[in-house]
């Protein structure tokens, strides 16, 4: 299962998306303002796999040194493959 998060870490929507994903054992994709979740320390309460859309991260000036290493970069093609592989896609929060 995949949860897509488009809202920033300091929003109720963003927090709700990550919490729900954690409870469901789902993976998350971070895009739009959700890309800021890839910053260090913003995903402390999430243990699943996390992916960030590279274009949206780059647009916001988020460089490798700013980011949590376990968050993997994907492009739109990678996102489509992840969505196609998932039994369910939930979002966008």
């Amino acid at each position, binding site marked *: 299962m995949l949860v897509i998060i*488009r*809202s*920033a870490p*300091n*929003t109720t929507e963003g927090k709700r998306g990550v919490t729900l994903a954690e409870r469901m054992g789902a993976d998350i994709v971070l895009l*739009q*303002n959700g890309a*800021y979740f890839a*910053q*260090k*320390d*913003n995903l402390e309460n999430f243990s699943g796999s996390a992916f960030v859309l590279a*274009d*949206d991260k*780059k*647009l*916001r*000036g*988020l*460089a490798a040194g*700013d980011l949590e290493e376990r968050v993997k970069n994907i492009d739109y093609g990678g996102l489509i493959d992840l969505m196609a592989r998932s039994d369910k896609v939930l979002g966008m929060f």
Partner: protein
Amino acid sequence: MEHIAMILRKPPYGDINAAEAVRHALGGVSGEFKVSLIMTDGGALLAKKGQDETGTGFTNLGAALKDCIDMDVEVLVEQSSLMENNISEGDIVDGVRVASIDEIAQLLKKADSTMIF
């Protein structure tokens, strides 16, 4: 000269507010107003260095913020908002000044009008 304070509270790109704030700030200085652009809360993320719009349909808002500074818009970012958004003071666009909330409060009291984005 009339002084307009503009406050941006939202992160760039996710919605149009940051682009609108920058556009109105540039419009204001061109129209011979004194403009202060104040970034608070998620808006502080607009100050982050290194924004790269390559391959997207967007205008680079970090570069537009630099244009504001070059055109003599007073550009301020609220100190605790930077911290809340994990942005260090060394990682902000050159010419953006870090200001305390008290300093911003005084500025807003003095400004002739305020626009909020």
